[in-house]
């Protein structure tokens, strides 16, 4: 995921979460996605900025979400090679954990159901992204053309 896409999605969901959606939902998905698909050096800057965006839009104390994102990302980077976070289930669990941590530290409640929804979304997204690409030949055969 590019950092710009991450920041744009952060802005969109910062507006949606709280007023339209539950206050925490997709933070875990965004952060895990950014760490998985971007270099750490770029990811950290994006996480700092994204966290500021979340806090500004949701009228929270600036820096708290950034701190959570950065600490979590740092731990992810450290364990990236040891734990299979690229696997959908692992990534989903990490997304759930991050969402729960942010919910508890920023809003004081666990918001378990939105966290589970976010984790499920992460799981399905990775399943979709990581599925093997169908070969060109087999596509023609399916269409009945040789």
């Amino acid at each position, binding site marked *: 995921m590019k950092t710009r896409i991450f920041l744009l999605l952060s802005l969109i969901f910062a*507006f949606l979460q709280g007023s339209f959606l539950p206050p925490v939902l997709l933070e875990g998905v965004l952060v895990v996605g950014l760490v998985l698909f971007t270099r750490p050096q770029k990811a950290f800057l994006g996480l700092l900025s994204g966290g500021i965006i979340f806090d500004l*839009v949701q009228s929270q*104390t600036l*820096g*708290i979400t950034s701190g959570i994102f950065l600490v979590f990302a740092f731990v992810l980077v450290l364990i990236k090679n040891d734990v299979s976070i690229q696997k959908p289930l692992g990534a989903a669990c990490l997304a759930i954990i991050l969402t729960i941590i942010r919910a508890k530290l920023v809003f004081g409640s666990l918001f378990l159901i939105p966290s589970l929804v976010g984790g499920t979304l992460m799981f399905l997204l990775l399943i979709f992204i990581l599925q093997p690409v169908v070969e060109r030949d087999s596509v023609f055969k399916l269409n009945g053309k040789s």
Partner: protein
Amino acid sequence: MQGAKNNTLYYLAIFYLLSSIFIYFLDSRGTLNFLHRSTQVLTIPVRSWLYDGRVSILSPLSAITDAVDQHRRIQELEYRNAELYAQLSGFKALEEENAKMRHLLGTNLPPNWQFAPARVVSVAGDTIDIFADTTLIVGTPVVTTDNGGVWVGKVESVVGREAEVSLSTHTVSKIPVIVRSAEDGSRHASGIVIGRGGYARLEQVLTSEQVDEGDLVLTSGLSLPPELLIGRVRNVIKTSGSPWQQADVDVAVQGNNLDFVFLVTKF
């Protein structure tokens, strides 16, 4: 090379983390409030609009569940209301009883007497039915209060926690009495008040004793609590040649006017 790369990574992470901590420190002290105010000019209208959209989408759905909840809530409230009404009427009864007890305490009855409150539940002619929490014994005197002790009657029969009390006008009622002047309280005569069914008559009063209209008729204390007002003398009847005189008695207590009475359990 890999190690240098990792070190760079660590330093970068620490740098960004310290930056976020610094920003948090500044904002917690209010230094960055201008940033919040300036962004809220845009964010608050957008979030309000989104919230209104959410309410308008969810309100038809919530109306269904709300209707079910409201119905259940109404039923609960009605039940609770009925319970409270029952409690309230109980409290009112206690309040009345309490007032009577305080009235009783303020009278000049002997302090060593003991009383138990009872509630009048029905009136039938010359009897009243009372209900009490205490053990009811046949023959127990029953009084009420009105600037002093006023005789009501005696317990004639007991069924559970209800008792039938015969008033002084009942045909079974025969009460030894004394007659005192209403003006100075001096004792004039003694006799017996006999119930005649609907009214009471003072009898067996010697003609040598002075009985005047308006004199107070009180219990004499023979096997009954003494000095309890039964009524006032009305219409003295003297028969020539007879050693006795009689008089009608205006009883002080009418059954219909009673709500709380007291059993004299010790005198």
